[in-house]
């Protein structure tokens, strides 16, 4: 790697290097790209900052993350998205591509200045009210139409609000037994069905955040079959965990959308394997301890995920034979970069391309210990769990951000 790009690739190269890594048994992947990260800055720096979040991203093998807009203040103006973008630049660990809010204050009523956010230094192309659903069909239609002017995409958090009022977990057998308000699958599926039809109608592209049900997969599959410009993501935790875990009433499992059933998990894995689901997105949602160390009903929703994503994908997709490492590169780097229209990421590992690279050790075995996380928060459902693999090194434009599994001082 020279000047941020791959200079030469191959065996027996006659070069002098500053860094020499014994990469025996390691997998080389293009730097990972996350479409869905909550960095919490500005406003909740006690949970995460751009710096700690990008450090966590580097530890997870990421070289670019999309930062969600539900900050305080909301990233619904050029000023806030530029601030976040600049903090990412300064961190030096990972590129931060801000996601702009679709509506002012995430309130679902009035379109935010989507064009101004696009025209800003941050160059926003992905817009989302994530955390909240753009449930008004007219607002959603207008947003889809409007962003066509600058090749933007609306990333929808699909959740019909009336059907999920008071929802605490997946609606099903377990919620019935536990007496917790249910989040029916149809509340997600009905919005996805509506939005793919709207996107097709106005000829725009729509991206569906964190698919969680088998029915959602079917709708996306159908829409893609029609040739419509629909993309979708799934989180690592929806590929691994089920609502049975909620029986513990441990809020570490409280997440939005909720953990679903084993049948949903299976459908999501298959859809990621066959490409119906385009990308793995972490929905990294850091929360300070006090927001989780409480009773289920008042606990915050979400879990951290940047540092464990690749391991969960190895366990659920690679070790099961559903996806090879090329497939992982496609779903965790190439396609998410394409959806976000990032030009400097998600490129093939070849001469002249930006030297964004992760070296991953799939043979590593270890127990997840959140105390070693770079993220400021510890709300991981994998604590104490045996997950395979570990990021050995990460390079952002040729500069090491992680070496030998340790964060590099920058």
């Amino acid at each position, binding site marked *: 790697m020279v000047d941020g790009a791959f200079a030469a690739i191959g065996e027996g190269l006659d070069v002098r290097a500053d860094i020499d890594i014994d990469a025996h048994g390691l997998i080389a992947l293009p730097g990972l790209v996350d479409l869905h990260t909550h960095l919490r800055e500005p406003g909740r720096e006690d949970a995460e900052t751009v710096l700690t979040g990008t450090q966590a991203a580097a530890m997870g093998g990421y070289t670019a993350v999309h930062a969600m807009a539900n900050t305080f203040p909301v990233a619904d103006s050029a000023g806030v998205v530029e601030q976040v973008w600049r903090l990412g630049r300064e961190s030096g660990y990972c590129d931060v591509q801000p996601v702009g809010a679709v509506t002012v204050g995430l309130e679902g009523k009035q379109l935010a200045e989507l064009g101004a956010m696009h025209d800003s230094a941050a160059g926003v192309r992905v817009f989302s009210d994530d955390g909240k659903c753009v449930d008004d069909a007219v607002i959603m239609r207008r947003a889809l139409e409007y962003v066509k002017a600058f090749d933007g995409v609306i990333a929808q958090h699909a959740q019909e609000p009336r059907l999920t009022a008071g929802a605490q977990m997946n609606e099903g057998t377990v*919620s019935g037994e536990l*007496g917790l308000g249910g989040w029916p699958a149809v509340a997600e599926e009905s919005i996805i069905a509506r939005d793919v039809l709207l996107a097709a109608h106005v000829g725009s592209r729509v991206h569906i955040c964190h698919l969680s049900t088998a029915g959602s997969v079917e709708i996306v599959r159908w829409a893609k079959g029609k040739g419509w410009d629909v993309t979708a993501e799934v989180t690592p935790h929806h590929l691994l965990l089920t609502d049975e875990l909620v029986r513990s009433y441990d809020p570490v499992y409280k997440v939005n959308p909720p953990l679903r059933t084993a049948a949903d998990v299976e459908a999501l894995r298959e859809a990621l394997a066959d490409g119906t689901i385009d990308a793995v997105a972490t929905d990294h949602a850091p929360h300070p301890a006090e927001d989780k*160390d409480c*009773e*289920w*009903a*008042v606990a915050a929703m979400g879990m951290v995920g940047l540092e464990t994503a690749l391991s969960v994908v190895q366990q659920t997709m690679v070790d099961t034979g559903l996806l090879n490492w090329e497939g992982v590169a496609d779903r965790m780097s190439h396609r998410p970069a394409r959806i976000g229209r990032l030009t400097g990421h998600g490129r093939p590992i070849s001469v002249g391309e930006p030297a964004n690279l992760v070296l991953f050790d799939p043979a590593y075995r270890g127990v997840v210990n959140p105390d070693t996380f770079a993220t400021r928060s510890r709300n991981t459902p994998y604590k104490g769990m045996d997950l395979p693999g570990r990021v050995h090194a990460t390079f952002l434009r040729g500069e090491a951000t992680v070496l030998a599994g340790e964060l590099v001082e920058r």
Partner: protein
Amino acid sequence: MKRHLVSTADLGRDDALLILDTAEELSQFSGRAVKKLPTLRGRTVVNLFFEDSTRTKTSFEVAEKRLSADVINFSAKGSSVSKGESLKDTALTLQAMGADAVVIRHHASGAPARLAGSDWLHGSVINAGDGTHEHPTQALLDAFTLRRHLNPGAGRDLAGRKVAIVGDILHSRVARSNVHLLTTLGAEVTFVAPPTLLPIGIDTWPCEVSYDLDSVLPKADAVMMLRVQRERMNAAFFPTEREYSRRYGLDGARLARLPEHAIVMHPGPMVRGMEITAEVADSPRCTVVEQVANGVSVRMAVLYLLVGGATLADAPRTTELPEAAQ
């Protein structure tokens, strides 16, 4: 047997019978002039109520005092809890006060389970009703009442007895606790409600489900009417109060369809009208007042077995109550 009583699903048949038999013995003391037993002398029991419930709280308090426990009432209403103090902080305070047991009523499902599963508190946790999840001592007093009427005697269970539970099953912690306990004791439970008031996934529960009260009544040994809140009507769970009463209310005519020996139960408080008519509520077959009295005995038994030092599993089967004999 666990240190806590969070769910009736945690009670095996022997545990459940031990509680009922112990309650039966303890109930004899309520007829005496001096009702106090020294069993829990020096032990501290905290009643931690995040939700108003005069009936349940009073019942526990009477039970605790009859066992000579030091009782602390910690009402979350108007305290720092309503200003946002967490359950954890409250629990740490109670731990510092040396609580041997915490009787907790909470509006959120799972709060007692969270308390029992955490390391915030070392004493026993007794669930006095959590959200729409469970109310185990209510189920125990219901089972106690059922046994007295349908199969009286220590060591006996409810095998083959048919119990219909009618009304808002979806939001009922009483129904959830009863279905576990009654089936553990051998009874056959049928839930009767409109489909909107039954939880998703009920087909996996150990019970029958019917939408038709009239067809269930002739075979029932007991019918337990649940409170239906008028607010449910506004949330479209059923069309009108009148329609609900016609289809799922218990009136004189329906009472007559029950077998001669069958009893009518209600967890209280009864609001005469929508789910039960005054005629039925006042009938001698209605056990509501008796249920209240039995509640004290059952709660004494639970406290005695959990806090009195003996765990339910290793306590002697025939309870001698040595301290009581003094």
